[in-house]
């Protein structure tokens, strides 16, 4: 944390009323009969130099949000302002130029690296796209990039299959860094790694952030990891933001009943701390026909009549903590 109050920080990315509805075809004539409302009208801001995490369980829309920002899927509506320019209004070629500034690291490092390319080819390709460094200097730059992510210069001509999972993720990070991006979206970037390796990669991400003044949008289901890496945390449930707060207030005093249940559900590796557990009943409802009113009301232990009919909006508890719950408002 920089010590600046959030309103003094400069916004890097502003997401406004983003919706991502995927059509479902059906019936005799294959018409669109319904939509999967994967992301349903969400707004948030990422400030320069911070790490904002999106957490939530499968189907909450956290990965869809990341993909929509990068326009890997075209969003249904809304705007995504990156340094004030709307990414969603850009042409394909303008967007291609913007991609330098917005890089992504995926969960499965093996699937996102071309198995037939060596490390120097993978990183060289990224440098060629960016085309700032002359071709004869690129090998030096690749070695420099490898040193940033803790790989040795002699590994430059190896292929992805010769690396372990953690090392492959380091290559993915080096590829993202090659573009000298402003924002890196980490989509479950450490979820596939064993804890001992995960810790190495998390430490690396943190030190690179300091070194290169990076901004991260960190998408994860693992609240321990999120607590470690984030400045602010956004909790999603069934396509909606239910709570967004700075790390300390979210983990110390979660306000939304879903956030509370989520935090209490995680087993703590400590036999002396047996915490009170809130066990939610049932499964997450389908995003095709989400519950009316507050989407969480079907599983919420405190739900009242109003929750079934009225959608709660995000209200500010204080400058850095917003929550979408009728009961907190009162």
């Amino acid at each position, binding site marked *: 944390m920089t010590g600046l109050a959030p309103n003094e920080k400069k916004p890097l990315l502003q997401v406004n009323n983003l919706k991502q509805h995927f059509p*479902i075809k*059906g*019936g*005799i*004539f*294959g018409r669109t009969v319904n939509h999967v409302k994967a992301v349903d009208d969400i707004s948030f801001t990422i400030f320069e130099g911070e790490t904002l995490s999106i957490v939530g369980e499968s189907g909450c829309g956290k990965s869809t949000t990341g993909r929509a920002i990068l326009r890997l899927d075209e969003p249904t509506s809304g705007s995504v302002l990156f340094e004030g320019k709307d990414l969603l209004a850009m042409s394909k070629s303008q967007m291609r130029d913007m991609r330098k500034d917005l890089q992504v690291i995926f969960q499965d490092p093996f699937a996102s690296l071309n198995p037939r390319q060596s490390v120097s080819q993978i990183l060289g390709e990224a440098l060629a796209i960016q085309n700032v460094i002359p071709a004869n200097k690129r090998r030096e730059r690749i070695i420099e990039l490898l040193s940033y992510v803790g790989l040795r210069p002699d590994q430059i001509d190896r292929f992805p299959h010769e690396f372990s999972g953690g090392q492959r993720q380091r290559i993915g990070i080096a590829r993202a860094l090659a573009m000298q991006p402003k924002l890196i979206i980490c989509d479950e970037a450490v979820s596939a790694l064993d804890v001992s390796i995960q810790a190495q990669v998390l430490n690396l991400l943190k030190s690179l952030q300091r070194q290169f003044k990076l901004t991260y949008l960190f998408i994860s289901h693992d609240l321990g990891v999120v607590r470690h890496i984030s400045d602010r945390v956004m909790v999603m449930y069934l396509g909606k933001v239910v709570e967004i707060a700075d790390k300390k207030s979210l983990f110390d005093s979660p306000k939304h009943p879903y956030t509370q249940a989520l935090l209490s559900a995680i087993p703590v590796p400590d036999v002396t701390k047996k915490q009170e557990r809130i066990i939610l009943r049932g499964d997450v409802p389908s995003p095709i026909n989400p519950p009316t009113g507050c989407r969480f009301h079907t599983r919420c232990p405190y739900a009242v009549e109003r929750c079934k009919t009225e959608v709660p909006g995000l209200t500010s508890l204080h400058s850095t903590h917003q929550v979408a719950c009728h009961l907190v408002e009162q």
Partner: protein
Amino acid sequence: MFVYMIRRLLQMIPVLLGVILVVFLIMQMVPGDPAVLLAGEGASAETIANIRTQLGLDQPVMVQYFHYVTDVFTGDLGTSLRSNLPVFDEIMARLPATIELAIASIFVTIVLGMIAGIISATKQYSAADITIMIVALLGVSLPSFWLGLSLIYYFSVKLHLLPVAGWGTWKHVILPAITLGAGGAAIVARMTRSSMLDVVRQDYIRTAKAKGLRETVIVYKHALKNALIPIITVVGLQFGYLLGGTVLVESVYAINGLGRLIVDAIRMRDLPVVQGGVLIASIIFVFVNLLVDVLYRYFNKRIDLN
């Protein structure tokens, strides 16, 4: 599932119209004037013109097509130039033999192919597996007329076990069905093997083992039903080749089926019969495809989800 069937049946209407159009256009493109052919050599221009009016050949192509479609839907496929009998009746007289042959062959394809494939998959890399795969490779490569003649030579001429040619009793069916089904059986065997090998690696097979089930129950109950999906697709495709193959096999074994009818009609330039025969064969193929899709859907219910 019901909605899906209705949708597929509706989708068949344009497909059938397309089939009729293609058959119609082929006949338009065949060199020679049917009226001249019908009238015979040395006929007067007046006779030819008369015939042309009778057959409606003097009308625009679009009108002819419209008439042809309405005729087809009322079961009128024209009259054979050779026998003067309605083409529809000629075809119906020949169709049963061909359908019998096709069903027997597809039976050979499925049963022989799947049994060989399952043995191969469950005993991977064993001598049985290697033998089956070599035979299957030969089965794919051998031309059916060669296989047909060889079978006749050994089983009929040398061993006197089965009739040389003709149609009528179950004994007549065996050799043609094997000849026609062998190629498909080889392909099905290879597909069954690879599909089974894929399925036995799945997590639910491990679950079945952990339940304490015997190997045979695991293979035939838990694995086979899941392995069927790609096999059905291959069998469906084989049916197309099989219809084409009947032409050859019916000739080799002198069976009076649809295939031979068409071949003879081509030789005699009996165009209405060729047209009708091709049309009926195409319609059968379209319906078999539909059946395959429905079966595919039935065995792969997970598709319904999306």
